[in-house]
Protein backbone atom coordinates (compact mmCIF):
# COMPACT_ATOMS: atom_id res chain seq x y z
CA UNK A 1 0.00 0.00 0.00
CA UNK A 2 1.17 3.52 -0.77
CA UNK A 3 1.56 5.61 2.38
CA UNK A 4 2.83 8.71 0.64
CA UNK A 5 2.22 9.63 -2.96
CA UNK A 6 3.72 12.70 -4.60
CA UNK A 7 2.58 13.59 -8.08
CA UNK A 8 3.79 16.37 -10.33
CA UNK A 9 5.04 18.42 -7.41
CA UNK A 10 6.61 21.79 -8.18
CA UNK A 11 7.65 24.37 -5.62
CA UNK A 12 9.18 27.85 -5.88
CA UNK A 13 10.54 30.23 -3.33
CA UNK A 14 9.80 33.82 -4.44
CA UNK A 15 11.64 34.25 -7.72
CA UNK A 16 13.51 30.97 -7.43
CA UNK A 17 12.29 27.58 -8.63
CA UNK A 18 13.27 24.82 -6.19
CA UNK A 19 11.43 21.59 -6.97
CA UNK A 20 10.39 20.49 -10.44
CA UNK A 21 7.94 17.72 -11.30
CA UNK A 22 8.61 15.36 -8.41
CA UNK A 23 6.80 12.00 -8.60
CA UNK A 24 7.25 9.49 -5.80
CA UNK A 25 5.29 6.67 -4.23
CA UNK A 26 6.41 5.36 -0.84
CA UNK A 27 5.04 2.07 0.44
CA UNK A 28 3.88 1.79 4.04
CA UNK A 29 6.69 0.67 6.31
CA UNK A 30 9.44 1.67 3.91
CA UNK A 31 12.51 3.67 4.89
CA UNK A 32 13.58 6.09 2.17
CA UNK A 33 16.81 8.06 2.02
CA UNK A 34 16.84 11.36 0.16
CA UNK A 35 20.31 12.05 -1.18
CA UNK A 36 21.76 14.92 -3.12
CA UNK A 37 24.18 17.83 -2.94
CA UNK A 38 23.62 20.80 -0.63
CA UNK A 39 20.96 23.20 -1.86
CA UNK A 40 19.33 20.73 -4.25
CA UNK A 41 15.94 20.99 -2.50
CA UNK A 42 15.98 18.02 -0.12
CA UNK A 43 14.71 19.99 2.90
CA UNK A 44 12.16 21.76 0.73
CA UNK A 45 10.91 18.37 -0.46
CA UNK A 46 10.44 17.17 3.15
CA UNK A 47 8.55 20.36 4.04
CA UNK A 48 6.27 19.87 1.04
CA UNK A 49 5.54 16.31 2.14
CA UNK A 50 4.73 17.51 5.66
CA UNK A 51 2.37 20.16 4.32
CA UNK A 52 4.39 22.97 5.94
CA UNK A 53 5.06 24.36 2.47
CA UNK A 54 2.34 24.51 -0.14
CA UNK A 55 3.37 23.36 -3.63
CA UNK A 56 2.90 25.62 -6.63
CA UNK A 57 1.43 22.68 -8.51
CA UNK A 58 1.03 18.96 -8.03
CA UNK A 59 -0.01 17.31 -4.80
CA UNK A 60 1.05 15.15 -1.88
CA UNK A 61 -1.31 12.54 -0.49
CA UNK A 62 -0.76 10.71 2.77
CA UNK A 63 -2.77 7.50 3.18
CA UNK A 64 -4.97 8.64 0.32
CA UNK A 65 -5.76 12.10 1.72
CA UNK A 66 -4.38 15.20 0.00
CA UNK A 67 -2.18 16.80 2.67
CA UNK A 68 -3.32 20.34 1.93
CA UNK A 69 -6.95 19.34 2.65
CA UNK A 70 -6.06 18.52 6.25
CA UNK A 71 -5.89 21.07 9.06
CA UNK A 72 -2.53 21.75 10.65
CA UNK A 73 -3.50 19.72 13.73
CA UNK A 74 -4.72 16.77 11.65
CA UNK A 75 -1.41 16.79 9.80
CA UNK A 76 0.47 16.80 13.11
CA UNK A 77 -1.36 13.62 14.10
CA UNK A 78 -0.27 11.87 10.90
CA UNK A 79 3.23 13.18 10.28
CA UNK A 80 6.14 13.52 12.66
CA UNK A 81 8.82 15.93 11.50
CA UNK A 82 12.29 16.38 12.94
CA UNK A 83 13.90 19.55 11.64
CA UNK A 84 17.60 20.03 11.17
CA UNK A 85 17.92 22.45 14.06
CA UNK A 86 16.27 22.27 17.44
CA UNK A 87 16.76 24.75 20.25
CA UNK A 88 18.18 23.21 23.44
CA UNK A 89 15.16 24.73 25.22
CA UNK A 90 14.93 26.86 28.36
CA UNK A 91 15.64 23.95 30.70
CA UNK A 92 12.98 21.51 29.55
CA UNK A 93 13.52 17.92 30.61
CA UNK A 94 13.47 15.12 28.04
CA UNK A 95 10.05 14.12 29.36
CA UNK A 96 8.78 17.67 28.74
CA UNK A 97 10.17 17.58 25.20
CA UNK A 98 8.60 14.23 24.32
CA UNK A 99 5.35 15.37 26.00
CA UNK A 100 5.10 18.16 23.43
CA UNK A 101 4.41 15.46 20.86
CA UNK A 102 0.91 15.23 22.38
CA UNK A 103 0.16 18.87 21.57
CA UNK A 104 -1.98 18.11 18.50
CA UNK A 105 -4.20 15.89 20.68
CA UNK A 106 -4.88 18.46 23.41
CA UNK A 107 -7.76 20.94 23.44
CA UNK A 108 -7.23 24.58 24.34
CA UNK A 109 -7.99 24.10 28.05
CA UNK A 110 -6.82 20.52 28.35
CA UNK A 111 -3.83 19.03 30.13
CA UNK A 112 -2.34 15.63 29.30
CA UNK A 113 -4.58 12.71 30.18
CA UNK A 114 -3.46 9.26 31.33
CA UNK A 115 -3.67 8.19 27.71
CA UNK A 116 -1.29 10.94 26.64
CA UNK A 117 1.17 10.03 29.37
CA UNK A 118 1.02 6.37 28.29
CA UNK A 119 1.76 7.36 24.68
CA UNK A 120 4.75 9.41 25.85
CA UNK A 121 6.10 6.58 27.96
CA UNK A 122 5.71 4.10 25.14
CA UNK A 123 7.50 6.40 22.70
CA UNK A 124 10.37 6.85 25.15
CA UNK A 125 10.66 3.14 25.81
CA UNK A 126 10.73 2.36 22.08
CA UNK A 127 13.62 4.76 21.61
CA UNK A 128 15.45 3.81 24.80
CA UNK A 129 15.06 7.29 26.26
CA UNK A 130 12.82 6.55 29.26
CA UNK A 131 15.87 6.58 31.55
CA UNK A 132 16.71 10.08 30.30
CA UNK A 133 13.28 11.45 31.21
CA UNK A 134 14.40 13.69 34.08
CA UNK A 135 17.61 14.86 32.41
CA UNK A 136 17.67 18.33 30.86
CA UNK A 137 17.28 18.14 27.09
CA UNK A 138 20.03 20.74 26.64
CA UNK A 139 22.51 18.67 28.66
CA UNK A 140 22.41 15.29 26.86
CA UNK A 141 24.63 14.13 23.99
CA UNK A 142 23.81 14.69 20.33
CA UNK A 143 22.85 11.06 19.79
CA UNK A 144 20.58 11.07 22.85
CA UNK A 145 18.97 14.32 21.66
CA UNK A 146 18.18 12.77 18.31
CA UNK A 147 16.58 9.75 20.03
CA UNK A 148 14.50 12.06 22.23
CA UNK A 149 13.34 13.95 19.13
CA UNK A 150 12.36 10.66 17.50
CA UNK A 151 10.45 9.84 20.68
CA UNK A 152 8.63 13.17 20.46
CA UNK A 153 7.68 12.40 16.86
CA UNK A 154 6.47 8.93 17.93
CA UNK A 155 4.36 10.48 20.68
CA UNK A 156 2.43 12.15 17.85
CA UNK A 157 1.51 8.59 16.83
CA UNK A 158 2.33 9.36 13.21
CA UNK A 159 2.04 7.21 10.12
CA UNK A 160 4.90 9.05 8.46
CA UNK A 161 8.20 10.15 10.00
CA UNK A 162 10.22 12.83 8.20
CA UNK A 163 13.79 13.59 9.32
CA UNK A 164 16.03 16.32 8.00
CA UNK A 165 19.66 15.25 8.38
CA UNK A 166 19.10 13.35 11.64
CA UNK A 167 22.69 12.10 11.87
CA UNK A 168 24.74 14.89 10.34
CA UNK A 169 26.38 16.07 13.57
CA UNK A 170 26.87 12.63 15.07
CA UNK A 171 29.84 10.31 15.25
CA UNK A 172 29.67 6.99 13.46
CA UNK A 173 28.43 4.96 16.43
CA UNK A 174 25.43 7.25 16.97
CA UNK A 175 24.80 7.46 13.22
CA UNK A 176 24.39 3.69 13.04
CA UNK A 177 22.36 3.68 16.26
CA UNK A 178 19.87 6.30 15.03
CA UNK A 179 19.44 4.94 11.53
CA UNK A 180 19.02 1.36 12.73
CA UNK A 181 16.47 2.58 15.30
CA UNK A 182 14.43 4.20 12.53
CA UNK A 183 14.72 1.04 10.44
CA UNK A 184 13.39 -0.98 13.37
CA UNK A 185 10.42 1.40 13.80
CA UNK A 186 9.57 1.01 10.11
CA UNK A 187 9.74 -2.79 10.31
CA UNK A 188 7.92 -3.21 13.61
CA UNK A 189 5.33 -0.43 13.55
CA UNK A 190 4.80 0.04 9.83
CA UNK A 191 5.87 3.67 10.02
CA UNK A 192 6.90 5.14 6.69
CA UNK A 193 10.15 7.04 7.20
CA UNK A 194 11.93 9.51 4.97
CA UNK A 195 15.34 10.88 5.97
CA UNK A 196 17.67 13.34 4.33
CA UNK A 197 21.08 11.69 4.60
CA UNK A 198 24.55 12.56 3.37
CA UNK A 199 26.29 9.27 4.05
CA UNK A 200 25.65 7.09 1.02
CA UNK A 201 27.11 4.01 2.72
CA UNK A 202 24.85 4.37 5.70
CA UNK A 203 21.82 4.97 3.49
CA UNK A 204 22.63 1.95 1.32
CA UNK A 205 22.90 -0.25 4.38
CA UNK A 206 19.61 0.69 6.05
CA UNK A 207 17.25 2.31 3.56
CA UNK A 208 15.29 0.08 1.23
CA UNK A 209 14.47 2.99 -1.01
CA UNK A 210 16.70 5.79 -2.21
CA UNK A 211 15.86 9.01 -3.98
CA UNK A 212 18.63 10.92 -5.66
CA UNK A 213 17.91 14.62 -6.17
CA UNK A 214 19.75 17.12 -8.30
CA UNK A 215 18.74 20.76 -8.82
CA UNK A 216 15.18 20.13 -7.70
CA UNK A 217 14.58 17.08 -9.87
CA UNK A 218 14.59 13.40 -9.03
CA UNK A 219 17.44 11.79 -10.97
CA UNK A 220 16.98 8.23 -9.80
CA UNK A 221 14.63 6.21 -7.58
CA UNK A 222 14.89 2.62 -6.40
CA UNK A 223 16.91 0.35 -4.17
CA UNK A 224 20.60 0.91 -3.52
CA UNK A 225 22.05 -1.09 -6.44
CA UNK A 226 19.71 0.67 -8.85
CA UNK A 227 20.41 4.18 -7.59
CA UNK A 228 24.00 4.09 -6.43
CA UNK A 229 25.82 3.67 -9.71
CA UNK A 230 29.06 5.31 -10.72
CA UNK A 231 27.21 7.14 -13.44
CA UNK A 232 24.56 8.57 -11.10
CA UNK A 233 27.09 9.65 -8.46
CA UNK A 234 29.20 11.33 -11.13
CA UNK A 235 26.13 13.07 -12.52
CA UNK A 236 24.80 14.33 -9.16
CA UNK A 237 27.87 14.91 -7.00
CA UNK A 238 30.44 15.40 -9.76
CA UNK A 239 32.97 12.99 -8.28
CA UNK A 240 34.34 9.72 -9.61
CA UNK A 241 33.65 6.70 -7.37
CA UNK A 242 34.26 2.99 -7.40
CA UNK A 243 31.29 0.95 -6.29
CA UNK A 244 32.21 -2.04 -4.15
CA UNK A 245 29.55 -4.56 -3.24
CA UNK A 246 30.24 -6.69 -0.17
CA UNK A 247 27.44 -9.17 0.56
CA UNK A 248 25.32 -7.73 -2.23
CA UNK A 249 25.43 -4.31 -0.58
CA UNK A 250 26.59 -1.25 -2.40
CA UNK A 251 29.36 0.72 -0.76
CA UNK A 252 30.81 3.49 -2.88
CA UNK A 253 34.22 4.86 -1.93
Amino acid at each position, binding site marked *: MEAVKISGLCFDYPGKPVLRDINLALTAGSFTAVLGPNGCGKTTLLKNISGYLKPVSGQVTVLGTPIQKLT*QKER*AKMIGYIPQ*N*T*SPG*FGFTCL*DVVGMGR*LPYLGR*FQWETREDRAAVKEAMELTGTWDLRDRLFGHISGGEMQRVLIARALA*QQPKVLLMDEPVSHLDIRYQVEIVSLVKRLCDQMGITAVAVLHDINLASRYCGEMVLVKEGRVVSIGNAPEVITGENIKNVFDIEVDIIMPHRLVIPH
Partner: protein
Amino acid sequence: MKKTAAFALLVILLIILTAAALVVGSVKIPLEEIISIARGGGDATYRRVLLGIRIPRIIQAAVTGMGLSVSGAFLQGLLGNPLADPYILGISSGAALGAAVSIVLGLGMLGTQAMAFAAALATIYLVVSLSRIGHGTGGATLLLSGIAVSTFLSAILSFVMLRSHQKLSGIVFWMMGDFSLISWNEVIVSSPAIIVGTLLMYLYSKELNAIIMGRETAEHLGVNTQRVFGIILACGSLVTAAAVAVSGIVGFVGLMVPHITRMFVGPDNRVLVPFSALTGAIFLVFADALSRTLIQPAEIPIGIITALFGGPFFLYILRTSKTIK
Protein backbone atom coordinates in the same frame (compact mmCIF):
# COMPACT_ATOMS: atom_id res chain seq x y z
CA MET B 1 1.14 18.31 44.91
CA LYS B 2 4.15 20.38 45.90
CA LYS B 3 3.41 23.08 43.34
CA THR B 4 -0.17 23.60 44.50
CA ALA B 5 1.12 24.08 48.05
CA ALA B 6 3.77 26.53 46.85
CA PHE B 7 1.12 28.45 44.94
CA ALA B 8 -1.09 28.63 48.03
CA LEU B 9 1.87 29.86 50.09
CA LEU B 10 2.53 32.63 47.57
CA VAL B 11 -1.14 33.67 47.72
CA ILE B 12 -0.87 33.92 51.51
CA LEU B 13 2.36 35.93 51.15
CA LEU B 14 0.61 38.33 48.77
CA ILE B 15 -2.25 38.79 51.26
CA ILE B 16 0.13 39.48 54.16
CA LEU B 17 2.21 41.89 52.05
CA THR B 18 -0.93 43.68 50.92
CA ALA B 19 -2.05 44.11 54.52
CA ALA B 20 1.37 45.51 55.43
CA ALA B 21 1.32 47.77 52.37
CA LEU B 22 -2.04 49.18 53.50
CA VAL B 23 -0.47 50.27 56.80
CA VAL B 24 2.71 51.97 55.62
CA GLY B 25 3.21 55.23 53.75
CA SER B 26 3.39 58.99 54.38
CA VAL B 27 0.24 58.57 56.50
CA LYS B 28 0.62 55.52 58.69
CA ILE B 29 -2.73 53.81 59.19
CA PRO B 30 -2.74 51.47 62.19
CA LEU B 31 -4.08 47.97 61.56
CA GLU B 32 -6.94 48.50 64.07
CA GLU B 33 -8.08 51.52 62.03
CA ILE B 34 -8.03 49.45 58.84
CA ILE B 35 -10.19 46.82 60.50
CA SER B 36 -12.69 49.35 61.79
CA ILE B 37 -12.79 51.07 58.37
CA ALA B 38 -13.50 47.66 56.84
CA ARG B 39 -16.42 47.40 59.29
CA GLY B 40 -17.76 50.73 58.04
CA GLY B 41 -16.43 52.97 60.83
CA GLY B 42 -13.05 54.51 61.50
CA ASP B 43 -11.49 57.94 61.28
CA ALA B 44 -12.62 59.98 58.25
CA THR B 45 -9.11 61.04 57.14
CA TYR B 46 -7.75 57.54 57.43
CA ARG B 47 -10.78 56.33 55.58
CA ARG B 48 -10.20 58.71 52.70
CA VAL B 49 -6.51 57.80 52.44
CA LEU B 50 -7.17 54.06 52.64
CA LEU B 51 -10.15 53.78 50.30
CA GLY B 52 -9.36 56.61 47.89
CA ILE B 53 -5.58 56.38 47.57
CA ARG B 54 -3.95 53.36 49.08
CA ILE B 55 -6.23 50.52 47.98
CA PRO B 56 -6.42 51.55 44.31
CA ARG B 57 -2.68 52.10 44.30
CA ILE B 58 -1.94 48.64 45.68
CA ILE B 59 -4.39 47.00 43.27
CA GLN B 60 -2.75 48.76 40.34
CA ALA B 61 0.73 47.79 41.54
CA ALA B 62 -0.28 44.13 41.89
CA VAL B 63 -2.02 44.00 38.50
CA THR B 64 0.88 45.78 36.80
CA GLY B 65 3.41 43.39 38.37
CA MET B 66 1.34 40.45 37.19
CA GLY B 67 0.93 41.75 33.64
CA LEU B 68 4.53 42.82 33.09
CA SER B 69 5.87 39.52 34.45
CA VAL B 70 3.65 37.41 32.23
CA SER B 71 4.51 39.60 29.24
CA GLY B 72 8.19 39.09 30.03
CA ALA B 73 7.79 35.31 30.26
CA PHE B 74 6.03 35.21 26.88
CA LEU B 75 8.43 37.57 25.13
CA GLN B 76 11.42 35.57 26.40
CA GLY B 77 9.95 32.33 25.04
CA LEU B 78 8.56 33.75 21.82
CA LEU B 79 11.72 35.56 20.81
CA GLY B 80 14.00 32.86 22.19
CA ASN B 81 15.84 35.44 24.23
CA PRO B 82 16.27 35.25 28.01
CA LEU B 83 16.83 39.01 28.22
CA ALA B 84 13.62 40.03 26.49
CA ASP B 85 11.08 42.05 28.45
CA PRO B 86 8.73 44.94 27.60
CA TYR B 87 11.19 47.50 28.99
CA ILE B 88 14.36 46.30 27.24
CA LEU B 89 12.58 45.79 23.92
CA GLY B 90 11.39 49.40 23.95
CA ILE B 91 7.65 48.57 24.18
CA SER B 92 7.42 50.58 27.40
CA SER B 93 9.10 53.63 25.86
CA GLY B 94 6.82 53.44 22.85
CA ALA B 95 3.75 53.23 25.08
CA ALA B 96 4.99 56.13 27.20
CA LEU B 97 5.51 58.31 24.15
CA GLY B 98 2.05 57.45 22.82
CA ALA B 99 0.50 58.25 26.18
CA ALA B 100 2.42 61.53 26.57
CA VAL B 101 1.46 62.74 23.10
CA SER B 102 -2.21 62.00 23.65
CA ILE B 103 -2.15 63.78 27.03
CA VAL B 104 -0.67 66.84 25.33
CA LEU B 105 -3.38 66.61 22.69
CA GLY B 106 -5.99 66.27 25.45
CA LEU B 107 -7.45 62.96 24.28
CA GLY B 108 -8.72 61.85 27.67
CA MET B 109 -7.97 58.69 29.58
CA LEU B 110 -9.35 56.16 27.10
CA GLY B 111 -7.69 58.00 24.24
CA THR B 112 -4.42 57.86 26.14
CA GLN B 113 -4.80 54.12 26.61
CA ALA B 114 -5.55 53.64 22.92
CA MET B 115 -2.60 55.78 21.81
CA ALA B 116 -0.25 54.02 24.21
CA PHE B 117 -1.41 50.66 22.83
CA ALA B 118 -1.00 51.72 19.21
CA ALA B 119 2.46 53.14 19.89
CA ALA B 120 3.50 50.00 21.79
CA LEU B 121 2.38 47.76 18.91
CA ALA B 122 4.21 49.91 16.38
CA THR B 123 7.35 49.80 18.53
CA ILE B 124 7.48 46.02 18.92
CA TYR B 125 6.83 45.61 15.21
CA LEU B 126 9.68 48.03 14.43
CA VAL B 127 12.09 46.38 16.87
CA VAL B 128 11.42 42.85 15.64
CA SER B 129 11.66 43.93 11.98
CA LEU B 130 14.91 45.80 12.61
CA SER B 131 16.42 42.77 14.32
CA ARG B 132 15.72 40.67 11.21
CA ILE B 133 17.62 43.00 8.88
CA GLY B 134 20.89 41.48 7.73
CA HIS B 135 21.92 38.30 9.42
CA GLY B 136 20.05 39.02 12.62
CA THR B 137 18.16 36.18 14.12
CA GLY B 138 20.57 36.21 17.05
CA GLY B 139 19.65 37.44 20.50
CA ALA B 140 22.09 40.33 20.52
CA THR B 141 20.59 41.97 17.41
CA LEU B 142 17.15 41.94 18.95
CA LEU B 143 18.35 43.51 22.20
CA LEU B 144 20.42 46.14 20.39
CA SER B 145 17.55 47.17 18.15
CA GLY B 146 15.32 47.30 21.24
CA ILE B 147 17.79 49.54 23.04
CA ALA B 148 18.30 51.76 19.98
CA VAL B 149 14.58 52.25 19.41
CA SER B 150 13.97 52.73 23.13
CA THR B 151 16.66 55.44 23.39
CA PHE B 152 15.33 57.19 20.31
CA LEU B 153 11.74 57.18 21.59
CA SER B 154 12.84 58.34 25.05
CA ALA B 155 14.57 61.32 23.45
CA ILE B 156 11.37 62.28 21.64
CA LEU B 157 9.43 61.76 24.87
CA SER B 158 11.78 64.07 26.75
CA PHE B 159 11.41 66.69 24.05
CA VAL B 160 7.61 66.47 24.15
CA MET B 161 7.74 66.92 27.92
CA LEU B 162 10.08 69.92 27.70
CA ARG B 163 7.71 71.62 25.26
CA SER B 164 4.58 71.04 27.31
CA HIS B 165 5.51 70.78 30.95
CA GLN B 166 2.23 72.27 32.13
CA LYS B 167 0.21 69.36 30.81
CA LEU B 168 2.53 66.48 31.61
CA SER B 169 3.62 65.33 34.98
CA GLY B 170 7.37 65.32 35.33
CA ILE B 171 9.95 63.45 33.36
CA VAL B 172 10.66 61.40 36.47
CA PHE B 173 7.10 60.09 36.45
CA TRP B 174 7.40 58.73 32.91
CA MET B 175 10.97 57.50 32.99
CA MET B 176 11.04 56.00 36.47
CA GLY B 177 7.49 54.86 37.00
CA ASP B 178 5.25 56.17 39.74
CA PHE B 179 2.09 54.86 41.39
CA SER B 180 1.43 58.02 43.43
CA LEU B 181 -1.11 59.43 40.98
CA ILE B 182 -3.24 56.29 40.87
CA SER B 183 -6.89 56.68 41.80
CA TRP B 184 -9.88 54.44 41.13
CA ASN B 185 -10.29 56.09 37.70
CA GLU B 186 -6.88 54.85 36.61
CA VAL B 187 -7.51 51.38 38.04
CA ILE B 188 -10.82 51.06 36.19
CA VAL B 189 -9.33 52.09 32.86
CA SER B 190 -6.07 50.16 33.12
CA SER B 191 -6.47 47.00 35.21
CA PRO B 192 -9.16 45.23 33.16
CA ALA B 193 -7.05 45.62 30.00
CA ILE B 194 -4.02 44.20 31.79
CA ILE B 195 -5.99 41.26 33.20
CA VAL B 196 -7.63 40.42 29.86
CA GLY B 197 -4.30 40.62 28.01
CA THR B 198 -2.62 38.43 30.59
CA LEU B 199 -5.34 35.76 30.53
CA LEU B 200 -5.32 35.67 26.73
CA MET B 201 -1.56 35.09 26.74
CA TYR B 202 -1.93 32.33 29.32
CA LEU B 203 -4.21 30.43 26.93
CA TYR B 204 -1.21 30.00 24.63
CA SER B 205 1.20 28.54 27.21
CA LYS B 206 1.29 25.11 25.57
CA GLU B 207 1.97 26.63 22.18
CA LEU B 208 4.71 28.76 23.70
CA ASN B 209 6.41 25.61 25.03
CA ALA B 210 6.56 24.23 21.49
CA ILE B 211 7.71 27.54 20.00
CA ILE B 212 10.66 27.60 22.44
CA MET B 213 11.90 24.39 20.78
CA GLY B 214 11.96 26.13 17.41
CA ARG B 215 9.41 27.59 15.05
CA GLU B 216 9.52 24.70 12.54
CA THR B 217 9.11 22.20 15.37
CA ALA B 218 6.06 24.06 16.65
CA GLU B 219 4.51 24.24 13.18
CA HIS B 220 4.85 20.48 12.85
CA LEU B 221 3.22 19.96 16.23
CA GLY B 222 0.15 21.73 14.87
CA VAL B 223 0.86 25.26 16.11
CA ASN B 224 0.06 28.15 13.78
CA THR B 225 3.11 30.11 14.88
CA GLN B 226 2.34 33.24 12.92
CA ARG B 227 -1.03 33.55 14.61
CA VAL B 228 0.43 32.86 18.06
CA PHE B 229 3.18 35.44 17.48
CA GLY B 230 0.59 38.02 16.49
CA ILE B 231 -1.67 37.33 19.45
CA ILE B 232 1.16 37.33 22.00
CA LEU B 233 2.83 40.48 20.69
CA ALA B 234 -0.54 42.24 20.61
CA CYS B 235 -1.44 41.11 24.15
CA GLY B 236 2.03 41.97 25.47
CA SER B 237 1.72 45.43 23.95
CA LEU B 238 -1.78 45.86 25.37
CA VAL B 239 -0.65 44.90 28.87
CA THR B 240 2.45 47.10 28.76
CA ALA B 241 0.58 50.06 27.30
CA ALA B 242 -2.24 49.85 29.84
CA ALA B 243 0.32 49.78 32.66
CA VAL B 244 2.62 52.51 31.33
CA ALA B 245 -0.21 54.92 30.48
CA VAL B 246 -1.16 55.29 34.16
CA SER B 247 2.08 54.66 36.01
CA GLY B 248 5.00 55.40 33.68
CA ILE B 249 7.79 53.01 32.80
CA VAL B 250 8.45 50.41 35.48
CA GLY B 251 11.44 48.52 34.17
CA PHE B 252 12.98 45.09 34.69
CA VAL B 253 9.94 43.43 36.31
CA GLY B 254 9.26 41.39 33.19
CA LEU B 255 12.90 40.38 33.04
CA MET B 256 13.53 39.36 36.64
CA VAL B 257 10.32 37.72 37.75
CA PRO B 258 10.04 35.00 35.09
CA HIS B 259 13.70 34.08 35.54
CA ILE B 260 13.55 33.73 39.29
CA THR B 261 10.26 31.86 39.03
CA ARG B 262 11.67 29.52 36.37
CA MET B 263 14.46 28.52 38.75
CA PHE B 264 11.85 27.18 41.16
CA VAL B 265 9.02 25.79 39.03
CA GLY B 266 10.80 24.90 35.77
CA PRO B 267 10.19 26.06 32.22
CA ASP B 268 6.72 24.59 31.47
CA ASN B 269 4.79 27.76 30.74
CA ARG B 270 1.50 26.26 31.88
CA VAL B 271 3.00 26.30 35.38
CA LEU B 272 5.50 29.13 34.98
CA VAL B 273 2.98 31.71 33.80
CA PRO B 274 0.60 31.59 36.80
CA PHE B 275 3.54 31.49 39.21
CA SER B 276 5.15 34.45 37.45
CA ALA B 277 1.88 36.35 37.62
CA LEU B 278 1.68 35.87 41.36
CA THR B 279 5.38 36.54 41.99
CA GLY B 280 5.20 39.67 39.85
CA ALA B 281 2.25 40.97 41.86
CA ILE B 282 4.11 40.28 45.12
CA PHE B 283 7.25 41.96 43.83
CA LEU B 284 5.57 45.20 42.77
CA VAL B 285 3.39 45.46 45.88
CA PHE B 286 6.60 45.06 47.87
CA ALA B 287 8.57 47.54 45.71
CA ASP B 288 5.73 50.05 45.93
CA ALA B 289 5.63 49.76 49.73
CA LEU B 290 9.40 50.35 49.78
CA SER B 291 9.02 53.38 47.54
CA ARG B 292 6.58 54.89 50.05
CA THR B 293 8.59 54.13 53.19
CA LEU B 294 12.33 54.38 52.49
CA ILE B 295 12.58 58.20 52.58
CA GLN B 296 9.32 59.12 54.31
CA PRO B 297 7.45 61.39 53.94
CA ALA B 298 8.86 61.71 50.43
CA GLU B 299 8.60 58.90 47.85
CA ILE B 300 11.17 57.18 45.68
CA PRO B 301 9.82 56.50 42.17
CA ILE B 302 9.21 52.75 41.96
CA GLY B 303 11.25 52.42 38.76
CA ILE B 304 14.37 53.36 40.73
CA ILE B 305 13.75 50.44 43.06
CA THR B 306 13.04 47.93 40.29
CA ALA B 307 16.11 49.17 38.37
CA LEU B 308 18.29 48.82 41.48
CA PHE B 309 17.31 45.14 41.58
CA GLY B 310 17.09 44.74 37.82
CA GLY B 311 20.36 46.24 36.57
CA PRO B 312 22.62 43.81 38.43
CA PHE B 313 20.21 40.99 37.61
CA PHE B 314 20.47 41.79 33.90
CA LEU B 315 24.27 41.47 34.15
CA TYR B 316 23.91 38.20 36.04
CA ILE B 317 21.76 36.71 33.26
CA LEU B 318 24.15 38.07 30.65
CA ARG B 319 27.02 36.25 32.35
CA THR B 320 25.27 32.95 32.95
CA SER B 321 23.19 32.64 29.78
CA LYS B 322 24.69 30.61 26.97
CA THR B 323 22.14 31.62 24.38
CA ILE B 324 23.10 35.31 24.02
CA LYS B 325 25.88 35.60 21.50
